[in-house]
């Protein structure tokens, strides 16, 4: 809860500074705590909370439950809230069959993992360099660079999609390296897209490392490279992990650029694109569509658990979203 608190804390701080208790998370809630009467009065609150919970969870529950239902229980008007005869046939079909003729799930998973992990790694490296520059040096274009990052963060890919596509078409022609129809173009775009947010996040972590530490190491005879690896890196690592997970989720979910760049090269498809293609071709196979959707969702859910605490702060910088 702390990270979340801090986030809005900063926005609120200016106004709330006068307040005696700033971190009020542990203070007992005001009303509704003692006595059966109070508990009765707070019943509507519990019910409302339960309603919010159900509203949030139900579609996810329905997705998973459908994936385990045999076809007979899907193709019917009598939809049940629990599969009578749970089956793995849909998962079997998704994992072992061909989602797109000639290509199976594992190859698409490989594509998605390759482009996601490679772009995250490249992005982490580039943004670490830039973050060190912004946090440790004062140079003339520094403020301009930060403002540029804040602006680029808001640039809508959906509006730029045509010119980005043409840009990469022309880059391919000029360089002789084909960037469309395979993962290389996507890799470049995904790396670039997550740079602003990761630089802005990491900058804070780099700035948090006391300069004295680096200076002490330098006095002990460490070169700049040693200082970077032995002093800065271990301290910045948690931030690097958080920023990388944001970048991972963004790239993992990305759809419109993959759709335009990969076109008909089905063997290069990433998972979201595969799922959309499969839906277009076998739109009535809801069991396998839901099974594939579940598989697409699982990695994101796992990462959410990891970064849950930093999610809000990072998102306020505009990171992860559809």
């Amino acid at each position, binding site marked *: 809860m702390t*990270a*979340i*608190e801090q*986030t*809005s*804390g900063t*926005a*609120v*701080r200016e106004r*709330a500074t006068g*307040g005696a*208790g*700033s*971190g*009020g998370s542990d203070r007992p809630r*005001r009303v509704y705590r003692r006595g059966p009467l109070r508990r009765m009065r707070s019943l509507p*609150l519990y019910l409302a*909370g339960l309603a919010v*919970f159900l509203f*949030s*969870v139900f*579609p*996810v529950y*329905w997705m998973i439950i*459908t994936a385990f239902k045999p076809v007979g229980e899907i193709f019917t008007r009598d*939809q049940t809230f629990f599969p009578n005869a749970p089956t793995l046939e849909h998962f079997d079909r998704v994992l072992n069959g061909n989602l797109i003729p000639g290509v199976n799930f594992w190859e698409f998973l490989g594509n998605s993992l390759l482009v996601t992990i490679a772009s995250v790694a490249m992005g982490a490296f*580039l943004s670490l360099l830039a973050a060190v*520059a912004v946090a440790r*040096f004062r140079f003339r274009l520094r*403020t301009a660079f930060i403002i540029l990052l804040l602006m*680029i963060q*808001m640039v*809508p*890919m*959906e*509006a*730029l999609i*045509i*010119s*980005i*596509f*043409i840009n990469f078409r*022309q880059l391919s022609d000029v360089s002789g390296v084909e960037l469309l129809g395979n993962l290389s173009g996507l890799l470049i775009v995904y790396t*670039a897209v997550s740079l602003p947010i990761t630089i802005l*996040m990491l900058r*804070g972590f780099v700035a*948090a490392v006391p*300069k004295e530490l680096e200076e002490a190491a330098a006095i002990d005879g460490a070169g700049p490279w040693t200082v970077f690896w032995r002093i800065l890196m271990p301290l910045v690592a948690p931030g690097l992990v958080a920023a990388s997970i944001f970048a991972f989720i963004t790239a993992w*979910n990305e759809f*419109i650029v993959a759709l*335009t760049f990969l076109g008909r090269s089905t063997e290069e498809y990433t998972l979201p694109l595969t799922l959309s293609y499969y*839906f277009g071709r076998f739109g009535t196979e809801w069991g396998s569509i*839901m099974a594939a*959707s579940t598989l*697409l*969702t699982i990695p994101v859910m796992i990462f959410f658990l990891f970064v849950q605490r930093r999610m*809000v*702060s990072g998102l306020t*910088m505009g990171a992860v979203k*559809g």
Partner: protein
Amino acid sequence: MAQTVEPRTARGRGEAAPAPVSKIAPRRRKLPIPYLLIGPALILLAIVLLWPIVQMVWYSFTDFTTRNLLPNQPGPTWNGFSHYQTLLSDPEFWTILRNTVVVCVLMVGITMVLGTLVGLLLHKLPKWFAGFVSIGMMLAWATPALSASLVFRWLFLPERGLVNVTLDSLPDWLVGSGWLDYNWFLEPLPLFSILITVIVWQSFPFIAVSVLAGLKSIPDELYEAARMDGASAWKAFWNVTFPMLRPLFALLLILQIIWDLRVFTQLYILANSFQNKDVYLLSYYIYQQGFSASPANYGMGSAIAVVMTVMILFVTAYYLRIMIRQGETR
């Protein structure tokens, strides 16, 4: 607003001290080290994201089409403001623009109100129960846009979708009849309603959790004072909570507007074709002009993209102002 607190406070702590140092330091290291460090990132951003913005504006004044992409073909020719003139005199474009604005306002409005209410609710609930509800909201939040859209399409499917089946089983005097075969995905009104539902479902947890965090930073004394003065919960919200959280609300509002203007994936799955122009939104229209129309009309698509970018630019300007005021650029 942006950082987690560790860096934040540290920066606050460090800012005061290194400031004088940094005035001397740059003279000593006049080396272009910082430029070497930001160089790779800057070059990549310039090629991938900045240059296309320039190109987009330029293409919107040309008749660019697929033919111009072929080797040994002349580049696109300038045709001035004709795309913009066509757009402005095209009632279809105005309808799409209006729908985009209306749908976006509804998404943002409902998300903000619902998110704030849930945030207030979580604040009142005991910790264990609030945590339980938050975990549920995390699931909605973490679901990829594509999975979410597919689930909602399945929920609202004619004849077998749970919503249709349930509505059909309810008494006719309550909901009317004919729900079983009802197709939600053909007409703008039902389709946009589902689109809004998907977006709200995915976005309200973020608002709720942010508002909850904000509420925790408001000292209880303020509410006690308000209660002493006899203020109702409603009055306390508008006279204490809202003014205290105004900066937070402004930022959330901006982010939400920008995200919701861009919605594409969800509509792509829900509409599932480009045949019905009535259900287009701006981002969908851009994509259709560029990659679904035949022949592709890159010029027109770019002109629409310029319109959308200008809309987002206004919101971004406000966002920048907030960030600069909060000292994020320092």
